[in-house]
Every structure is written in structure tokens, then in C-alpha cells.
């Protein structure tokens, strides 16, 4: 641990564009050094903020005083064994994907920020284009506890029941709800590994993971469908999500503002250089990802999608289709929209809360929520993952974004959905989560925090103050 100096100012920020403060900085190069830093911080009562590549959008890596503990310099290792990737958590997603690609393997989950570390993806519960969260594929986990001790978790060995969970040879007693509504609150039957994924660096740090890999599907397709109205797009999405489920792994809807933002960013954003202009008069678009080994089946599914698209008012000439390696040109459109949004914000140099808040919940009635949100947005864009009800909305220049975000959080929870389903709570959503938590959920959070982090060095002021 070294005292913070202005020469290390980059540790104060992440991709959320929030800026925090730090008194200490540590960038350990070995697990031993990392554990020493944790012990020292716990002994001295120093708050810790864990940082991977600082690519998160919810401010989880923004320090709030105390120690900024960077993991990017930890030694990296990767190995494939029995279909599992054994990797140190400091490995970047892009590095892991290239490593797997050489062996014609892929992750089932597909988060799209290649600079993000595997540890960061695990900690934030990141998902990508497809519906599967990255953490759900982790089979074994070496976890550093805030005390500086380590815990080896294997999938299936420890799960929450209604009264808590048994780990570290002790029982953590708490009233576990049947269904979780927030990252960090467990649910009955949840595996310890899934619970730790999404804990946002509050309960410890992933050191090594064993994650499932799969043979690269023989066929993979990205298809963009452009429509003249949002109503047509939603109608198509509803119909498409009911069909083709065997091969359809992702289906996203982009609103007009998202398309406009992408068009506007064409000259500046490298990922858009091979993307032609969107078809004229496009108001909304649907982006589908299909994969599988059955070539005939997948082609049949695509023909079915094309029929549904026509029935929804779409014209075949307003589609783009790419397969295999070419599909990687179109598939990142969702991620590129996020990058384009950040570029806009950088240009505008906006610093208000408006830029820090986004809606990325999952909803029981996603299409209705998506439509309603369009009516209440002043400025911003919406993207919807139709298959699992996730909506991403970035809000620009709103006077009171918190109210809108809170409203949609309540709605997601009322519909049995999930609050902050993609980027984690970070610093941006933590207070709102605590405000929304029930007494039972708070009790659960406290009991788990006490067991994992008795010195409150990692769960820091967030829980200390709020609970």
C-alpha cells in the first residue's frame, strides 16, 4: 500500500465517468501481496475499493476514500482442462476469447467489453448480448475474503436455503427470500458461486476461476431487422421471441434514439467503420443472434424470422445478415451504443447525476415497460433484451433522473423483475437499493456482510451507514 498521489489519478475513475477519492493505492503483482494488502487494510480499518480494468458503468470501481486496490497487475495465467478454462481473474476478457478461439472454444456467456477482467465480469454479474450471466458458468472459484483469507468454492457444494448457508465451517443464519430482487441478496437454492457473482467487490475478490467453455457452434448468425416504427419492432420482437427458441440466443430492440446515436458516431467510433448507413426511414431495429450445430434447423429458424418480420410490416431489403466471423461486425451494435453514449457525454462534459444513472433492470412485462419508458424519457435511448426482459436506458440531460430511475426500479420489482440486472449496483445504485430493500432483505445483507467481512473493510460505508 502506498499513499495516493495525484500521479495515480486514473484510479479515481471508471467508465461510469464518476470520480471518487482515495488515500491509499495498492497494485499487487501476486496473490500473496494481494492478501497482505487485504489483511493490512482490515487491521487498520481502511475501506477497500477493488478495481479490475475500471470498465464498469455503475461506478463499482470508483473509490470512496480508503484504498484503491487494483488487480490488473496480478500475474495472468490460462489453461484449458476438461472443457474448463482455468484462469486468473486478472485475465482480460479479450485475452481469454482469443485464447479460446484458437482452440475453437467459446464462453456460453458473452459480455462484450474485451478490456474487462474476468474477475470484474464475475464481480459485477455481467451479461452480454446473450442472456446467460458470465458468473453462471463458473464452476469453481478461489475467493479472497476481506480478512485476507481464501475460500475455495465449488459449484453445488454450498447453496442457500431458507435459513441461510453453511460455509467456513459455520452457518450464516438469515431469512433468505424465495426470489432475489437485488445483486447481493441471495435466494433460496442459490449456489454460493452465483451469489458471489454480482457482489460488486463487497464480499471479497475472485482470484482464480474455472469457467465452462463450449465448442464453437458450427453456425452463428447475427441479423439486424430494421423497421419503420417502434410498434412494428415490438410486434416483431414479441412474435420472434416465441418462435425459434432452440437457436435464438439473443434478441434486442433498439429505439430510434439508439440508432440515431450510432449513426451520429459513425465517423468517430472504430467499431462502426465497417457498418453501412442504416436503411433510410428506419425508426427501430431488432438484432438477433442465432447459433447451433444444425445448419438446416438454423436456416429454417431464420426463414421463420423473416416471415414474422414481413408480417410485422418489415421489408426483406431492410435486413442485414452475417454469419461466422462476419457476424462479429453486427453483433457489437449494443455495446457500441454504450460507447457512443459515453462519447456523447464526454463531448458534452456533463457532470450531473443525469449521466450517472441508467436503467438496466429486468422486467416481467418488458415490452410494456419499454414502451412506457419511451413516453417518459426526455432524452436518452432504450435498448431491450426481449428474451430476458432486460432494458438498458441511458438518460441524458434529465433534471431529475433519480425519480425516473426509482420509478422503473419499483416497477421492475413489482413485476417480479430484478433491479440493476447488468452492471451491478456500483456506487450509482447502492443507496437506491438499500432504500428499496425490505427488512428481511436488509437482515440477510447484514448477516452475510458480518460473516464475510467482519471489519467492514470491503462493504465499507455503504452497508455500515445504510443498514
Amino acid at each position, binding site marked *: 500500500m502506498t499513499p495516493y498521489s495525484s*500521479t495515480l489519478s486514473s484510479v479515481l475513475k471508471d467508465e461510469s465517468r464518476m470520480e471518487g477519492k482515495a488515500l491509499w493505492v495498492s497494485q499487487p503483482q501476486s496473490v500473496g501481496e494481494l492478501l497482505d494488502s487485504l489483511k493490512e487494510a482490515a487491521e487498520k480499518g481502511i475501506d477497500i475499493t477493488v478495481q479490475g480494468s475500471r470498465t464498469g458503468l455503475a461506478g463499482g470501481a470508483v473509490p470512496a476514500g480508503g484504498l484503491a486496490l487494483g488487480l490488473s497487475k496480478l500475474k495472468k495465467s490460462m489453461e484449458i482442462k476438461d472443457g474448463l478454462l482455468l484462469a486468473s481473474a486478472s485475465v482480460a476478457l479479450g485475452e481469454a476469447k482469443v485464447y479460446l478461439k484458437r482452440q475453437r472454444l467459446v464462453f456460453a456467456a458473452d459480455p462484450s467489453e474485451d478490456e474487462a477482467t474476468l474477475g470484474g465480469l464475475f464481480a459485477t454479474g455481467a451479461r452480454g448480448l446473450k442472456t446467460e450471466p458470465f458468473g453462471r458458468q463458473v464452476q469453481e472459484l478461489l475467493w479472497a475474503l476481506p480478512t485476507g483469507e481464501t475460500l475455495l468454492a465449488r459449484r453445488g457444494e454450498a447453496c442457500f436455503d431458507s435459513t441461510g448457508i453453511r460455509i467456513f465451517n459455520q452457518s450464516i443464519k438469515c431469512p433468505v427470500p424465495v426470489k432475489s430482487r437485488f445483486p447481493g441478496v441471495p435466494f433460496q437454492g442459490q449456489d454460493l458461486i452465483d451469489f458471489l457473482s454480482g457482489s460488486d467487490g463487497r464480499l471479497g475478490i475472485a482470484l482464480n476461476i474455472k469457467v465452462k467453455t463450449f465448442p464453437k457452434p458450427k453456425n452463428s448468425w447475427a441479423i439486424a431487422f430494421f423497421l419503420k416504427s417502434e410498434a412494428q419492432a415490438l410486434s416483431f420482437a414479441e412474435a420472434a421471441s416465441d418462435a425459434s427458441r432452440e437457436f435464438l440466443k439473443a434478441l434486442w430492440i433498439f429505439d430510434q434514439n439508439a440508432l440515431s446515436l450510432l449513426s451520429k458516431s459513425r465517423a468517430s467510433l472504430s467499431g462502426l467503420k465497417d457498418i453501412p448507413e442504416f436503411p433510410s426511414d428506419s425508426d427501430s431495429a431488432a438484432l438477433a443472434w442465432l447459433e447451433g450445430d444444425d445448419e438446416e434447423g438454423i436456416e429454417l429458424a431464420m426463414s421463420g424470422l423473416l416471415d414474422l418480420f414481413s408480417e410485422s410490416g418489415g421489408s426483406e431489403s431492410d*435486413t442485414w445478415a452475417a454469419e461466422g466471423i*462476419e457476424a462479429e461486425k453486427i453483433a457489437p451494435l449494443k455495446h457500441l451504443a454504450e460507447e457512443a453514449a459515453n462519447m456523447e457525454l464526454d463531448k458534452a462534459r456533463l457532470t450531473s447525476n443525469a449521466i450517472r444513472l441508467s436503467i438496466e433492470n429486468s422486467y416481467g412485462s418488458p415490452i410494456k415497460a419499454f414502451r412506457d419508458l419511451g413516453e417518459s424519457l426526455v432524452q436518452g435511448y432504450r435498448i431491450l433484451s426481449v428474451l430476458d426482459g432486460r432494458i438498458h436506458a441511458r438518460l441524458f440531460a434529465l433534471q431529475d433522473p433519480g425519480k425516473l430511475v426509482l420509478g422503473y426500479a419499483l416497477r421492475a420489482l413489482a413485476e417480479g423483475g430484478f433491479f440493476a440486472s447488468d452492471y451491478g449496483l456500483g456506487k450509482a445504485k447502492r443507496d437506491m437499493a438499500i432504500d428499496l430493500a425490505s427488512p428481511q432483505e436488509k437482515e440477510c445483507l447484514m448477516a452475510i456482510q458480518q460473516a464475510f467481512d467482519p471489519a467492514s473493510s470491503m462493504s465499507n460505508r455503504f452497508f455500515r451507514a445504510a443498514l
Partner: protein
Amino acid sequence: MRIVVCVKQVPSMSAQMDPETGLLFRASAESAMNPLDFCAVEAGMQILKRHGGELIALSMGPQSAQETLRLAMALGAGRAILLSDKAFAGADAYVTAFTLSQAIKAIGNVDLVVCGLNTTDGDTAQVPFSLAAQLGWPSFGWVKLIELEPLAFVQEQTGTEARAEARLPMVIAVGRISPPRIPTLGAKLAAKRKPLEVWGLNDLPEKSPEFYGLRASPTRVKKIYATKRERKVLPLELGLNETVKILKGELSDPKAFIEPVIATPTQLPDWNGQAKSGSVLACLQADHRGLCLVSKEMASLLISLSQGRFETHGVFIGSDLPKPLEDELLALGLDCVHVCLDNDFKIFDARPFSEAALACVKALNPAVVLAGATPEGRALAPALAAHLRTGVTADCTGLSLSDNGELLQIRPAFGGDIMAQILTPQARPQIATVRLGAFSALESAKRSRTKIKRFQAPHSQVLPLQTLGHFEDEPAKDLVIAIGGGLRDKAAISLFEKLAEKANASLMCSRCLVERGWFDQSRQIGLSGRSVSPKLLVTFGISGSAQFLSGIKGAKRLVSINLDKDAPILDFADVPLVGDMREIAERCLEM
């Protein structure tokens, strides 16, 4: 109009080569259509839409290349032909062009052939020009714009742009034009069911296998090897202020520069050659400002390579020879410069220029011919080689000439992690292109001995050409700042422009920023751009591919900033700094 678009399946990621044969293991990598071939198909489709007719996609490769042809059909090609036969395997650029020319003859009544300028695997940019020469057609490369009515093309040349109206039949080679279309879903599905023709040796007019494949290829890969990295200094992971302090010191204190050493061509061990010939020749080039620097560098290179063992010659083709240019030719120190002047040679046109160069080569019978790796030289060399049935090694970074006149040619390949040693064992002359800055121009003491001889050469009719104005291709300053893929946001370029202005530096870039369309190619450093030899080169966010590194061999001091401490460029840098390029530049401007 019958249009043929040549497309190639290329490895999309790190490829492996067979160290025995020097050939690519295609099975080891995923494959894709060559990126510029998308532009070729797009160009073909735009022309087809205006002028009507038929578009045929043509490829040579293994059966798996059918996927690339099906993609071309999904993009609009009405017919697709794959040239696939064991006899075709291992072809170099000359023989590939020969095989394609045979197919084009077999197709018959072709008006226009459209190629992508270069491919990502070989990156030689030879095939379109060799193909045109072997068909006896005009060619027009480096096309950046297509005018549809009347059909005309605009190309980049050294220091200028030229426009040519189409004279069919002809071959064009397109660079990056507007983003190519993406096929519709219906077209993709339909293309899977369309018939695709596979042609073998017996489908071509020339049926003798001796004209095809590796056995007919004039050039051979003698050896390939991975580029070795030896770390000069451990990367410095300092704080922002300390990093900026070091950088500012480097930028402002000329005493910190290592004294420049006069660079000489890469010294390579001699090896035993077989053939003998008494002269070597450089194809010299001038633009509106005078003799091009690359021509001076080639002259120095020839003098250095020959070491008095061979006569050194130059050939200059142009419309006039003003006194200043004549003086420059005399100052090259070559034994003789052969000058062919004709009003037709006002603007470069590959076919007539290569025919004039051919006349000189036939008269001289040199062992080696060099051309600059400029748009003109890279079109002239393969066209000349096609006339002579010999090969070209493009963009050499090392050359060695044996007593017997055999040229060992070294160039990076396959993303630059591999270097290839290439020979032209039988065919003569051995032709190579060299890039601006790859070798240094030296002052010659032989000025008084240089002779100028004039000659006339029969040539084909030139294309209807016009220049579209000159642009000043500013020579790089003593201090060059280069930025690369680490730059995520185009808006941040202004930051580095300010830094360059403040430091009185030239601002240049790596290839990926040109590909993103953020910089003009004239500012690109590297194998497919230009070489630089500044006293100080500062790179920001450039990882350091071998292609880029081959363009900075002449830099006297290298300061590199990269967020990734494992970036290859940090191994080569005199001052390797680990840090965020944007933050460092911002702070540098503030301080």
C-alpha cells in the same frame, strides 16, 4: 457489362505456416473474405446497378473458399467460380495472376475486373497489376472513388490524385471506398442454394500443369522465422507526473538524442548463389517537386549492394527532364541513368510505363530491378514482372546481393510476427520494391561519372488521364509523434495535434487509425504506409506490430507509451513508459 470481381479467402486471425514449405496451414485459422474484397464487390455492384450486365465472383483457393464466393453471391454476384485444383497449389502472386487470367479468358467477353488492392495475408498488392499485364489490359490501382457516369476512377498517386475514364476492358484495384453493404437475410439464404462452379486445370485454356502452382512460381520462400524480441529496457511503470516529466524532457532536450548513425541496408550473411549478371537497376520516379526521395534511397541501396561488383543503373520514364531533375539524377551516383521521355508519360499509367521499363530491362538484362513501394512503383513492378515472367517481392526490409547476383529478399509476413526470406531462384531479373525510408539515401561522390542515356520505347495507348491537383506530402520532421489503436475516440486526436504543434513534431499514426478512417494513408507509418527516420519518435497507444516496426527502423530514439506493459513496442523502445496515452498527453499539455 460483364464484370468479374476477384475475391480471396484469407485467414482472419493468427495464421501458422509450414516451416518446411513456407506455405500457410489454412486449417489452423478461421477464414474470411479479404476486407478490401468487400469493397471490390461493392464497387462492382455500384457499376452493375448503373450500367447493367452481369457480375461474376472469381476466386482461387481450396474448397473452403466456396464460403467466400457464397458471400459474394449474397452481396450481389450472379455467378461464382472457384478455381480449385491441386495443380494450382502454392502459387505466388505472378502465377496466381496467371491462373486468374486464364479463368477470365475462359469466362470470355469480360469488360471489367475489379480487385481489392491488397490482401491481409500476403499484403503484396501485386495480383491486380500482374493480372492486367498478363491479359494485356490497362490497369488502374489505388482507386478511392468511382464515378458512375461516365465510368471513371480516381486514384492516389505520389503527391497527387489522378482520374481516368474507363477504357474497357481493364482491371481496377480498389482501396477502402464507402463501407460495403451487408447482405440481406433473404440474399444470404438464397446464396446457400445457388449453384457454384468449381473449375480445375482442364477448364482453363492453358492446360499444362507446368504453368501453375508452386512449380511455376518464380519466387520461393527460402525460410520463415519468428521475429525475435529482445527487451532493451524494462518498461517504466511510473506515476503520471514522473512519466510526463520524462516525456517532456525527451521532447524538449535535443541533447538527449543519440547522435544519428548513417543507416545502411540491413547487413545479411552472404550465401551461395548460382546465376550471374553484370548490372542492377532502379526504376526512378519523380513528382511535381522533383526526384522522389525513395528513388534516391534506392540508388544508394544499389550502390551499397553492388559494392563495385555490379554496374548500377537507373531508368527514368517521364514527359520531360528539366535541368533541376537532370541534376538530381546525376547526383545519384549511379553508373548510368536511362531516360525515356514521351508526352504520353505525363501521368503515371502502369501499362505504358511498364512497357517502357521493359525496353530498358531487355537492353540491360540486369540481375536485380528495384522499384519504390509507392502507388506507382507497386503497380509498375508486378506489371514489368509479368512481361518478364518473373516474380516480385514487395516491401522488402532487408536485401543481400551475392557475388553471383542472387538477391536474398526479406519481408515481414502474416501480421508481421513472421519474417520471410524470399528467393527468385531461376527467373530474372529479380524484382523487389522498397519503401520510402526503409533504406537511407547517401551523398554520392560519383556524380561526375554518372551518364545519362536517352532511349525511346514503343508502348500501348495511355488511359485518358488527368491530375486532380497536387498535395504536399509533408516530409516527417526530426520529431515524430505517432498514435495508434489505443486511441478509442476520434475526438481525442485534437489533443495529440496540439501536442505535436507544441513540440514542433509531425503527427503520424499506425495502420489501424487509417483503417478507421481517422487519418489519411499519407500519415501512416509501417509496411503499408511509409517509413520514418526522425531523431526522436514518440509513440502513443501503438502496440508495435512487425509491420509498424519495419517502418521505424531509421528512428534514432524511440519513446513509447502504452497501457499494456507487455506491448511489443516497449521491448524495442529506448524509453518504454507504461501509462494511459490520453492522460499523459493531457498532462503534458497542461504542464
